[in-house]
């Protein structure tokens, strides 16, 4: 047959909990009540820490910061599946995942102040610092996944990025290397509809990001990123696949950035209010809250208690933030090399001399 069908790919999207709070019983994961409630709690925590950051920024106590509001399900559903041995390779909007994995939030806040000690991730947390050059970190996730594979470790590297990041060459090279070397990497793309002011429709002519996995010879799928249960299930299965050495995996979590790109941006310049409103109706938190309330697992009092508890934690983190002494100016030099070469020692001396003169 001279026109041969060589192969094909179907892009699938998973949703379990619909925007009105109704679940698909057949797809419902076998999670205990505690875990279900835990998912809501972790989303609420994320939102509370996020709102605090907005406040701190408005008060000038931290600098520019990019809100994750709207993406809580996409981050909480994944986080529940992570194990200590996994490596997290975040971009710039994964504070929810990091918080969920134990990063003290005063470090995140201090990052927004421009204090680089924030990127000294505490011991025991396998995470790389926030990576600002878009998509570049995905190669580190691919390399980490290669390392896990070479060592036969049952763990995954999770590389995070946004929809905009999929346009960069490094996205392509990362997925291609991962495919070739069977890297134990989950590429986790939060498609929040916008890259600053550029809508997804102008980022690529492809209908989905998930289908891009086909270009690299491995599996990919779309998930309703505002449905914490679907995110949980999809990432659980993908992580199992990845950790067991069956090759990399791509998840596209379809979600929405409710706020401006960062506090330095004004989204009203470029996107219609109606779009934002439409997505407000698909809020990941209220959806889960409705479901749990109907199940009798959540009520206003529980919510009030949780909010009080988290608020206290938030305040403690803010205190910790403000108790951080200024880093010494010599920090500029002291982490450049394992051993400082002579020219840098000389320059460091110059800095010290100048600082002493009152500058």
């Amino acid at each position, binding site marked *: 047959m001279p026109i041969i069908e060589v192969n094909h790919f179907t892009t699938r999207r998973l949703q379990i909990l619909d925007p009105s709070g109704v679940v698909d019983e057949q797809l419902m994961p076998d999670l205990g009540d505690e875990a279900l409630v835990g998912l809501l709690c972790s989303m609420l925590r994320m939102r509370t820490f996020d709102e605090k950051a907005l406040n701190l920024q408005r008060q000038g106590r931290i600098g520019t910061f990019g809100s994750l509001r709207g993406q809580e399900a996409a981050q909480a559903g994944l986080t529940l599946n992570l194990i200590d041995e996994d490596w997290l390779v975040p971009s710039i909007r994964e504070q929810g995942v990091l918080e969920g994995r134990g990063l003290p939030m005063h470090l995140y806040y201090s990052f927004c102040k421009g204090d680089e000690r924030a990127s000294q991730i505490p011991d025991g947390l396998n995470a790389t610092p926030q990576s*600002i050059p878009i998509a570049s970190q995905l190669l580190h996730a691919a390399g980490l996944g290669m390392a896990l594979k070479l060592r036969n470790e049952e763990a995954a590297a999770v590389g995070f990025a946004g929809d905009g990041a999929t346009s960069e060459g490094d996205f392509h090279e990362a997925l291609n290397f991962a495919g070739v070397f069977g890297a134990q990497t989950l590429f986790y793309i939060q498609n929040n509809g916008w890259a600053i002011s550029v809508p997804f429709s102008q980022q690529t002519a492809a209908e989905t990001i998930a289908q891009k996995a086909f270009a690299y010879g491995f599996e990919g799928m779309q998930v309703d990123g505002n449905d914490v249960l679907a995110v949980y299930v999809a990432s659980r299965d993908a992580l199992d696949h990845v950790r067991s050495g069956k090759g990399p995996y791509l998840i596209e979590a379809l979600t929405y950035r409710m706020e401006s790109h960062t506090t330095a941006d004004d989204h009203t310049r470029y996107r219609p209010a109606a779009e934002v409103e439409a997505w407000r109706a698909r809020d990941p938190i209220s959806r889960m809250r409705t479901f749990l309330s109907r199940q009798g697992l959540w009520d206003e009092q529980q919510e009030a208690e949780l909010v009080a508890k988290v608020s206290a934690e938030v305040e403690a983190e803010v205190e910790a933030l403000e108790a951080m002494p200024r880093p010494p100016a010599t920090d500029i030099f002291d982490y450049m090399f394992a051993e400082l070469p002579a020219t840098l020692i000389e320059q460091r001396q110059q800095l010290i001399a100048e600082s002493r003169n009152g500058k």
Partner: protein
Amino acid sequence: MASDAATALAPSSGERMTMVQALNQALAQEMERDPAILLMGEDVGPDGGVFRVTAGLIERFGDQRVLDTPLAESGIIGTAIGLCIGGFRPITEIQFMGFIYPAINQLFAHAARLRNRSRGRLSVPLVVRMPYGGGIRPPEHHSESYEAMLANTPGLKTVIPADPYDAKGLLISAIRDDDPVIFLEPKRLYRAFRQAVPEEPYTVPIGKGRVYRPGKDVTVIAYGSMVQVANAAADRAAKQEISVEVIDLRSIVPLDVEIFIESVRKTGRAVVVHEAPRTCGFGAEIVAQINERALLNLLAPVERVTGFDTIFPGAVLEDHYMPNPDRVLAAIKRTLEF
């Protein structure tokens, strides 16, 4: 930062504008003049650029002239080269100079080389606008000054205005140039002060520096945002009876060698100032030129006041890194006390 000297060279006529406004006006007027000119970059459309330099242009010229691109710097410069071959004159924006690295291959291996490679058959009348430099306390990669590698790459011109008047005139020259021009915008000066800018289009020639402030004891050579720092140091020096001549290079390639050599021949002392790291920074080239052409006039070693050989630090430590009037003044004095 708006000292009198900062605007001393400005014409008296014209609306008083920020650098952002002057750039925006230059873009609009040139796009009006020549339909082959396109604007391309991340967020240059409805958002008007993250610094608002392209504000209003997509509304005025439409989305066939102002292209919001996918998030991919190599893609921006690479397709712009193709558009040049196809008869357009694209003005590209790289959101911050810290994000030019992914496009280096297209810029250095192609844009800079196509005229030479094709022995003149093809050319790349491309402008690459990039906000550069420190002073606004942003996150990592948003404060960088990578001009030295541009200067070491044959085939590119690199222009750096120091005030709104020059910004408009140099940008128009860059747009009309038939070779690739990197146009570095000192982001800390975007709105730092206003200056009278004539309404009509005008050019400031690429490759000619200017004596920003005449003086006779020491020559301070700077460009971009460091011109203001040099000038502030000169103000202070003046109070101590030291007369400083400030040279604004305006472009580093082509380099106006004559203007600073002549000044150093007169003063016998020189300080060069830039934000970029010291080792192999553009200051080294200035020192080498002075060494070659005015060694016998030198009364003291040329001083370099630069960033350290470190990563540009986060906001909290930024002030310790950036050259400032204190450092420049101290260097001026070292040349006098040598």
